[in-house]
């Protein structure tokens, strides 16, 4: 090798090392340069020009969710590398408190801003219950999977009306109302769904209402209404219990996509597959068995609020949740994808002798409840019918966030929510409540088991000084026995980079004394040790505020 080659090699090596150092330096600087304030509103409410409606048919949605996005994921090499390194991509819309800020997608409600029972029962509904005396039918659909009516009530409000199946009274409407309240309290945008009561004799048909019959259109008549009602559940007094869904305000712009960005929405900066509220929805959906989460059950509405026009993003159609549907849902829902590669391979390999969830049945609990149970519910194995990419991206932190959301409901609050379904049979209410509680227990036990389950951090300033308090969700919800908490406190004085690091200490209480005062920033790193499991640490940053006092400025889960 010539001297010149040696020299070139040396230079190259030096440049490489310098570059790596610079790379790390830049990355560290950018990381260090992040401000430490917590953002609670992600302001995506800015006025935008009216976007075009996104048309999405079943085949396009199916191909996207079951083929193209799956293949893209399978060929995403950085994703594989991150997965192998045990460092999956974190959600992009998480603030320094490890929470999701309010946005046009999500509003922090019960988990962070405790709602009263009245608020929980009311849910998204406002403006009072519908009044269907002398209501007018303005649109009708008699064909298809879900025939229904559009009705203007006595107060001039417009509702979509869905009837319960004659053989399964209260099934669909009950599920829809309960899940609406739960998803609303969890923070999602959902329609106002009411249980309403219709007397067909008091219904008028607006002139010009037409229905499609084959390829033709013809006027919708009272005979058509009678035929529709023949299949619907009615009450002894001749009235019909219905699910009345108030039309969303604004202009429909079609479903939102689970992957990507809406190019005609300048407010849409975060790839949907990396939104924590969509990733964490997997846990919440598994709780209420909301398997029918295809994109067509989402909706973007172009709304005007506070003088601004923007898109608000909704989840819609929860009639198939719990055990519900037009008829009781089939057993496989929630247990298997519509086209489930894993099951198919197993069946092929065993010449059909592997018994898939599709081949199993479960007993009908009650006609009002359908098939909904906690008996063989495995939170990790829960699946929607179609692949939802944000669910595949869910990290332990996202799951922890969502688990905290569902644990925020007390038993009494849940009972009040279930009561809004107005089941005739008290046993149905009782069964739904018990099943929800048990499923939630299983979910929490699973998703909290391998993470650091401490939460709800608060500062307690007493005579002896400042202490950091927290809850252990496993203990709080009787999922595990007491644990030990190992912690290390690092004090960083203002204007300095290095701090004084204390020795690691251990406590069995959920209160860590920080001393008489905090100057600059104090970082408290906490590990939870339970039996033979030691969790990753949670680091809580405490700072003295400019106006005096102290505050938690950041929570970091690793």
């Amino acid at each position, binding site marked *: 090798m010539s001297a010149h080659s040696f020299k070139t090699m040396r230079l190259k090596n030096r440049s490489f090392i310098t570059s790596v150092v610079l790379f790390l330096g830049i990355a560290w600087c950018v990381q260090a340069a992040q401000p430490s304030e917590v*953002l*609670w*509103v992600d302001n995506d409410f800015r006025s935008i020009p009216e976007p075009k409606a996104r048309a999405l048919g079943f085949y396009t949605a199916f191909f996207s969710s079951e083929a193209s996005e799956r293949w*893209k994921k399978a060929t995403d090499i950085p994703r594989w590398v991150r997965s192998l390194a045990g460092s999956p991509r974190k959600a992009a819309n998480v603030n320094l408190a490890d929470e999701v800020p309010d946005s046009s997608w999500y509003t922090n409600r019960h988990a962070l801003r405790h709602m009263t029972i009245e*608020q929980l029962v009311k849910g998204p509904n406002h403006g009072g219950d519908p009044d269907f005396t002398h209501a007018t039918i303005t649109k009708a659909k008699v064909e298809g999977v879900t025939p229904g009516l559009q009705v203007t009530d006595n107060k001039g409000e417009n509702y979509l009306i869905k009837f319960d199946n004659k053989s399964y009274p209260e099934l669909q409407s009950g599920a829809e109302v309960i899940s609406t309240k739960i998803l609303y309290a969890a923070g999602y945008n959902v329609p106002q769904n009411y249980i309403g009561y219709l007397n067909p004799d008091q219904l008028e048909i607006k002139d010009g209402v037409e229905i499609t019959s084959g390829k033709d259109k013809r006027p919708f008549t009272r005979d058509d209404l009678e035929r529709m009602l023949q299949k619907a559940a009615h009450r002894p007094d001749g009235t019909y219990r219905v699910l009345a869904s108030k039309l969303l305000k604004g202009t429909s712009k079609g479903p939102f996509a689970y992957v990507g960005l809406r190019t005609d929405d300048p407010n849409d900066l975060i790839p949907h597959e990396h939104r924590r509220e969509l990733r964490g929805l997997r846990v919440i959906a598994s709780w209420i068995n909301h398997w029918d989460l295809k994109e067509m059950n989402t909706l973007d509405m172009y709304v005007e*609020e506070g003088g601004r026009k923007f898109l608000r993003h909704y989840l819609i159609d929860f009639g198939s949740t719990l055990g519900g549907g037009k008829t009781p849902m089939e057993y496989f829902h929630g247990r298997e994808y519509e086209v489930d590669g894993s099951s198919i391979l197993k069946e*092929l390999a065993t010449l059909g002798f592997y018994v898939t969830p599709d081949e199993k049945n479960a007993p009908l609990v009650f006609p009002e409840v359908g098939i909904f149970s906690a008996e063989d519910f495995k939170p990790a194995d829960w699946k929607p019918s179609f692949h939802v990419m944000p669910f595949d991206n869910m990290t332990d932190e996202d799951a922890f966030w969502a688990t905290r959301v569902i644990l925020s409901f007390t038993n009494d609050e849940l009972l009040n929510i279930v009561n809004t379904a107005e089941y005739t049979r008290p046993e149905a209410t009782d069964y739904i409540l018990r099943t929800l509680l048990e499923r939630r227990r299983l979910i929490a036990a699973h998703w909290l088991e391998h993470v650091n389950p401490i939460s709800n951090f608060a500062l307690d300033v007493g005579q002896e000084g400042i202490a950091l308090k927290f809850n252990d969700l496993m203990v709080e919800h009787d999922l595990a026995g007491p644990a030990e908490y190992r912690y290390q406190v690092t004090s960083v004085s203002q204007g300095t980079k290095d701090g004084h690091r204390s020795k690691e200490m251990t406590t069995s209480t959920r209160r860590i004394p920080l001393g008489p005062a905090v100057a600059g920033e104090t970082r408290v790193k906490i590990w939870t040790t339970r039996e033979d499991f030691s969790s990753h640490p949670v680091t809580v940053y405490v700072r003295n505020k400019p106006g005096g006092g102290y505050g938690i400025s950041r929570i970091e889960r690793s």
Partner: protein
Amino acid sequence: MPKTTKHKVAKAFFGVIFVALSMAIPGNVYGQQDEIPPATPEEQPVVADPASTSPEASERIVSGRPALYSFKRGLHPVAWLEAGVRPALKLAESAGFGNRAAEPESKRYSRTSGVKFGIDGMGSGSGFGPEITTYNKNLFNTGVEIQIPLLVTYKMYHSGRFLVGVPLASGGPLERLRLELTGGYFSRASDNFFGIGNDSSRWNESEYRSVTRRAGVALDARIRGLGADWAVIAGTEYRSVGITEPRNSVSAMDVFSGVDIPGLTSDAGARIVSARGVLQRDSRDNPWLPESGGVQRVEVSLHEGIQGGDFAYWQYRGEIQQFFPLTEDRRKVISFVGAIETNKEKGGSEIPFWDLPYVGSHSTVRAFDSRRFVDKSAVTATLEYRFGIGRHFDLGIFTDAGQVAPEIRDFTWDRLHTGYGGRFIVRMKNHRALILEIAHTREQLWKAYLDVSSFF
């Protein structure tokens, strides 16, 4: 340092800086809000309210869209594939293809009269093609049904048929009794012929073309009872069959010029009058993809040539199909399908070769050439194990066997032609199916069949 090396090092240097920045900068850049909101319900909005932020506020959890996000997604090969497939998907959606497939047949063709489009074939070796059927189910409110299907396959087989059904009686167990008038023109561009016998050589492969005109009348009674649908059919038919040389392949007339083959080398073509009787019992749960029940059918017919040769013969045919579900949900089914046919000359007359039974077709022994073995008697059987995979697919593993011989008593076990293969079945709504079959025999490594007729 040489100039080029300097450039390379500088490029690498700035490249690393660029990568570091592009990885680091799109991370979260946080705004200027204060600590975790207090958990007091009164002060907090229940809906994320734009009014709670000032119009000038621009705090976002991220500073912008991820660098090159849409570009990278658009560059992915799958995105190109998706872009290519999407127009077809949208076309299918706009045409209501899925909706129509989901409709029961009674609803799909609920109109009394009209035109329906489908895909069908003309039997063994014909391929498939578009079929247009003009129909009227209640002509002049008399209950008379007329259908006129016109079919052209991609192998240029074509037919024009008509069917007129005149209702005579119904009620009680008699579902219907009707008089059927049928007729049509059938042009088969080419059919295989390898000679007669169970050992005919593939070296003798040749083809012939046929044109058949038919007209018939029959009484068709459908009776429901004893757990099945029964059909009793009695009728008579006139056929004019012409045999000619194929257009672009080796002619059977040339290959077998030295052999006496009735209907081919002598008296090519004939006019025949037939009388036939059929008794059929059908207890299948679904004709397209049966999971239980079966079909038993016997047919006897007498054929008399009236012009073009001394043809007179009896034809006896028996068929059996039986489906045995192994599980309650009928996802695993064993099926047996068998058929036997024999033809007997009447007096000293002959049987035209084109009316002889054969082995080698989708419905007999797959993966042999079409009409591979021909003789006066034939027996075929298929045994299949079919199981569901997922909710939308089935897989079948089958074995076929068949043999031809001059007489039934000539059948022997050791002369059976056998094959095996698999079927992949896509279940459509309304119990219909798209079926792809692959079969193997000693003569063909594999042969694929696509059955779409049940779907249309």
